[in-house]
């Protein structure tokens, strides 16, 4: 996984609440068996007008946001389906950080698995960032070590993050590798449970 330290980049505003993963990447793009190439599916239905042509008003169709790497949005972003295709598609488009007042649980987790930093700020702070983001070329700096987002005027917004998650993302650690370091503890756990609750271990034979 790609480590996340500091990111300075263009911000793209998506002013909607409850953006669900069906919207982030519709089902027809879930038939893939790969993690890459999902950019064309990102916000697919919203990018087009009813007649199928590209909607020039949709934010990601505007040249000014083409190279945006920070997505700014509203409450409950990423709700709905657990599809990891959602962060894969965001990553494929170039987003490395998403800022919102709240995220759905599974999406939030999925971001960390893919080197994307989801940042939770207070609603009024997000509102202030939205104001600034209307200016063309607005850039933010997201600093994971300091746990801050810096606006163009120098205002710093602090965010919380679990220390363990922070460390894994900052160093780009392989989560499975980390867990495998506890292989002995896992085996000991299984041994104990097997004697206490053997019905949990009636494994399926193929």
């Amino acid at each position, binding site marked *: 996984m790609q480590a996340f330290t500091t990111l300075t980049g263009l911000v793209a505003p998506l002013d*909607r*609440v*409850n953006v*669900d993963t*069906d*919207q982030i990447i*519709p*089902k*027809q793009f*879930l*038939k*893939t*068996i*790969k*993690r890459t190439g999902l950019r064309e599916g990102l916000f697919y*239905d919203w990018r087009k007008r*009813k007649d199928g042509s590209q909607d020039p008003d949709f934010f990601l169709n505007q040249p000014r946001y083409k190279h945006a790497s920070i997505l700014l949005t*509203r*409450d*409950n972003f990423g*709700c*709905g*389906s*657990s*599809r*990891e295709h959602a*962060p894969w598609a965001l990553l494929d488009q170039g987003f490395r950080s998403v800022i919102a007042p*709240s*995220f*759905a*649980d*599974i999406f939030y*987790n*999925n971001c960390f*698995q*893919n080197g994307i930093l989801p940042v939770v700020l207070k609603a009024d702070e997000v509102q202030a960032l939205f104001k600034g983001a209307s200016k063309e070329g607005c850039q933010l700096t997201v600093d994971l070590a300091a746990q801050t987002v810096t606006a163009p005027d120098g205002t710093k917004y602090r965010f919380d993050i*679990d*220390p*363990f*998650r922070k460390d894994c993302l900052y160093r780009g650690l392989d*989560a*499975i590798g*980390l*867990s*495998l370091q*506890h*292989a002995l*503890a*896992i085996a000991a*756990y*299984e041994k104990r*449970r097997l004697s206490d*609750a*053997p*019905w*949990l271990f*009636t*494994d*399926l034979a*193929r």
Partner: protein
Amino acid sequence: MAAQTLFEKIWDAHIVHTEPDGTTLLYVDRQLVHEVTSPQAFESLKLAGRKPRRPGATLAVPDHNVPTTDRKLGIADPVSAKQIQTLEENCRDFGITIFGMNDARQGIVHVIGPEQGFTLPGMTIVCGDSHTSTHGAFGALAFGIGTSEVEHVLATQCLIQTRPRTMEIRVDGKLSDHCSAKDVILAIIGRIGTAGGTGYVIEYTGSVIRGLTMEGRMTLCNMSIEAGARAGMVAPDEKTAAYIKGRPMAPAGDLFDRAVKAWRDLPTDPGAKYDLTIELNAEQIAPQVTWGTSPGMVTGVDGKVPDPKAMSDEKSRKAAERALEYMGLTPNTPMTQINIDKVFIGSCTNSRIEDLRLAASFAKGKKVAQSVHAMVVPGSGLVKHQAEQEGLDKIFRDAGFEWREAGCSMCLAMNADVLQPGERCASTSNRNFEGRQGAGGRTHLVSPIMAVAAAVEGHFVDIRHWK
């Protein structure tokens, strides 16, 4: 020992290791796998040269992408076919049990787990699918995960987790006739909102929940994710044990008796504290219908489409305006005056045998309106078989419903079952998001009997007064 909640007991029993900040390596007893969210997990596992730690703890089934028409014809879409074939190959390569597309036991992953006795109280159960919360009906801690985590569980039988908070939702009183678990959960989401449960595991308690059948409890827990919760659960009781007994993958004989004894210790101790408690009075719950593009945009069938202008909060107003535009609805329209084009009875929320029995009892002797296309998609091959044994298929067919093969079907419309732009559907599924059932499609979530009545009348009706 201090009084503990059901959740706390299960959580504590599954801790393998704790980091200084409280992050937990949690043991996972069982995993369910389907074709859509697993290929990349298996691929990475292969690339890293890793093997599943306990292949026998995992059960796989294709469900999202399978056709619900005659399976002998195969899958017309080569991309879907490839995904299903990939699942079969991965299961073969890694020694994982799979119910293939033509297996009589194939079905929606959250229907077959309980049906097979794979889902047991006190377990931790995961699946790369948000509606894994369904299995919480058995007093299991069950939640959806992403593909990287699917791989993590395959490789380690564990997950790295932060401890959620606990919420009790107590529903007391008496549910009115023809109101079901579906109406209860929609009313709950209407009350707490689609992010109301974020960061929490919900335990449903109260006389109404105790009175629900196992299948009703599954419907309830299924939509916990629509309230934003990581999981939903109901304490196991004698109903739970009776449901599990004798199922193919359930423990048998002495082992079953021992398990039942242990399950009796699982319910929340008297005096245990939840971080938050919410109470609902069942008497106030009318049959529910959603009007918008999020499950929290819901009202009683005796209500009206809301007027965004009357909403004081700007965010809600904007969201409601947008939703009504998408749904093609006018403020203040009575819900019973909304005409529909399609009806879908199915999905992991409402496709079990009791759902079909009840729906059939209302469809009996009736005819689907000329203007409506209606279909019934059983949750599994075994549910379908059982329904056919009982003659339910004939009742549905005679009434003008299509009777399909088992699968997710038009719940997410990944296969050929899709709404056309602008089409309006009464659906027993769980999500009314924009485009969920097809780009431009308009979904109203309802219970199975509300769906039947809507199919017959061509518009929503208050099932409490329907003859």
